[in-house]
């Protein structure tokens, strides 16, 4: 059973179903079992519309009608989310965004968007996770905390995994972070970097790899001797990999921190084999980026307002669209921006028409005008998803959704059909 939680997309969980209910989960991951066992709790099963400030239950047709009208009337709708649903739904979402001339953006925009910007300047030497398991003798987690966010990453793919050419004891683990995370506690080496100075540390590493002298005693709070040791470790490994997370993309410099990391790993390939990989959060954030890229040419922040894909992240990316007050309506699918966006962005989001498609009453749904309940992808509906390393997997359906609840792809299809009718009517 493929787990629709994080970018690990573990495909070896066992789920036991009795009747139409998941009764037992065999997995080593707390998040995964919580997902499989709790997904059905606090479930909203009725389409809701806001009237006089209060939610009132309504029919699916009425909810679809309202969302369709909202999108057709909007001059600059934002269609946001897409990372906790199937690629089939993402394709439908792109078609809808194109049809209504809106901006489509996925959660990468506040996750690994900067990583993508970095890749667009430098490319990335990377590999599938099996390569790490089979060959890596040095694993670096920089600004990421798999023990909390990707609990089985180390066991399945990295430091604790048994690979064809490497046993766990042959794999050294280095953690670079601003705080001693749970991951850091189990590392061979922990390097504590000062907040917002990862770039300086990476620059220092590149200097030392290039046998250059640094005119400092310490960089980013790390003594130069310790940086020298780290550089030597990287240079002398047989196959190294650098996993990085939001510690780099969200702190000062953002895309420039990725610039620093990508060019560091590039440099290391002069000495040995070295790969780099972002630790993608939501289980299909990678897939959303991939589908957007092959259908529009761009991975996120795609603006269809002029009838063709345009890409200007920093202006057409969700937070910027909201904070500049560009959009006059928003459709949120399988995501919760109210829980993840800065205050002022959420303010604008909530001040305009807002519709949400989500299995739960998320914080965003709580603020919405229209809420359409959807089935759980990966549990109540199948579809494809892409693992953080780009390996595609087919998610399975194991239980039936509650009566009358449709998957995202079907809801979006109904909206799209209605939108086309309304546009013809004009």
């Amino acid at each position, binding site marked *: 059973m493929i787990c629709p939680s994080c970018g690990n997309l573990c495909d070896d969980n066992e789920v036991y179903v009795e009747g139409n209910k998941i009764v037992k989960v065999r997995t080593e991951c707390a998040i995964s079992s919580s997902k499989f066992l709790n997904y059905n709790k606090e479930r909203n099963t009725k389409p809701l519309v806001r009237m006089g400030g209060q939610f009132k239950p309504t029919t699916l047709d009425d909810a679809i009608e309202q969302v369709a009208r909202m999108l057709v009337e909007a001059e600059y709708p934002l269609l946001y989310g897409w990372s906790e649903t199937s690629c089939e739904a993402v394709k439908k979402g792109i078609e809808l965004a194109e049809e209504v001339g809106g901006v489509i953006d996925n959660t990468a925009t506040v996750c690994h968007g900067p990583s993508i910007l970095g890749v*667009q300047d430098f490319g990335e030497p990377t590999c599938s996770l099996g390569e790490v398991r089979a060959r890596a003798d040095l694993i670096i987690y920089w600004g990421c905390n798999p023990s909390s966010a990707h609990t089985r990453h180390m066991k399945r793919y990295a430091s604790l995994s048994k690979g064809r050419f490497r046993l766990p004891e042959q794999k050294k683990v280095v953690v670079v972070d601003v705080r001693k995370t749970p991951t850091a506690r189990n590392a061979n080496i922990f390097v504590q970097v000062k907040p917002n100075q990862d770039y300086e540390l990476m620059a220092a590493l590149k*200097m030392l790899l290039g046998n250059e002298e640094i005119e400092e005693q310490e960089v980013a709070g790390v003594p130069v001797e310790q940086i020298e040791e780290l550089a030597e470790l990287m240079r002398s490994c047989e196959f190294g990999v650098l996993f990085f997370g939001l510690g780099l993309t969200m702190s000062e410099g953002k895309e420039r921190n990725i610039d620093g990391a990508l060019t560091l790993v590039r440099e290391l390939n002069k000495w040995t084999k070295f790969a780099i990989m972002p630790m993608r959060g939501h289980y299909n954030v990678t897939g959303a980026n991939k589908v957007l890229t092959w259908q529009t040419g761009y991975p996120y922040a795609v603006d269809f307002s002029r009838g063709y894909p345009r890409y200007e992240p*920093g202006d057409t990316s969700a937070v910027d669209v909201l904070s500049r007050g560009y959009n006059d309506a928003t459709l949120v699918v399988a995501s919760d921006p109210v829980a993840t966006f800065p205050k002022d962005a959420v303010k604008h989001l909530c001040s305009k028409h807002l519709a949400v498609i989500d299995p739960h009453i998320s914080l965003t749904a709580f603020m919405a005008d229209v809420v359409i309940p959807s089935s759980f992808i990966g549990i109540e509906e199948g579809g494809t998803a892409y693992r953080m390393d780009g390996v595609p997997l087919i998610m399975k359906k194991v239980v039936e959704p509650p009566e009358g609840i449709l998957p995202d792809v079907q809801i979006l299809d109904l909206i799209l059909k209605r939108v086309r009718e309304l546009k013809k009517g004009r």
Partner: protein
Amino acid sequence: MVELKLKIKAQHLTPIEGEVLTPDNLAGKSVNEILNLETWRGNRRVKLSELFTVEGESASKPSDLHLILEGDLRKVRHIGSRMSAGKITINGPVGTFVGFEVTGGTIVVNGDADAFLGMGMSGGVIEVNGNAGDAVGSGYWGTRCGMRGGLIVVKGNVGAELGCWMKDGTIRVGGNSDIFAGVRMQGGTIFIAGNVGAKPGAAMVNGKIVVLGNVPNIPPSFHIDEIRPSTKVDGDKIQGPFYVFYGDITEGGNGKLFISVEKNPHLKYREAYIF
């Protein structure tokens, strides 16, 4: 020059595409033709007449046309895109991508300009009498090439990544700059009268950055070269003294940072490395 004044009608809710607003597009057209030109507001095709009131007249040649834009233009983006000649004066705050890939002419903004001012610029002059946003004089995503020529002057402050990937030309900032000024710079000159955020010149391979104010830190990938009494920006002498750093060494770069000695006592320890 012939003056043509467009005053935006009211505050618009959704973004307006300003590409059409260049002397190149408007020259040789009658006021009526101009009013009937189409652009986008959000995803709607709208005539300029719906968005602007027009005074004055157009010129026959772009180089003779002085286009004056008035009002709150914060949601108008790409004003002056790919303009080659003439002049645009913007009275009021203006949106993103002003002067996108301009090759010539002059753009004056009397107000604040949003991000990506002069992106991909290769010639002409952009002057902002106010503040400007992020990535001034940078380049389109993935091009690895920022501003290639011309002059950008910002009287106030600028955001992050000023002159990112800049290849040639000059940027002058009267106020402060946010982090990563001149990051990945490949040539040209950046002059900042105020303070800069962290990591100026990071990964630059060529060009020159002059800072009169405070610098929190110099990337570890720079070496100090010497102390100079003064330096020059486009021919005018700038009084120092300056610490001169070169780098970015990790990029095999030969860029130069001129950092005010007086405003940066915390860099004194670096003097020990001068030989």
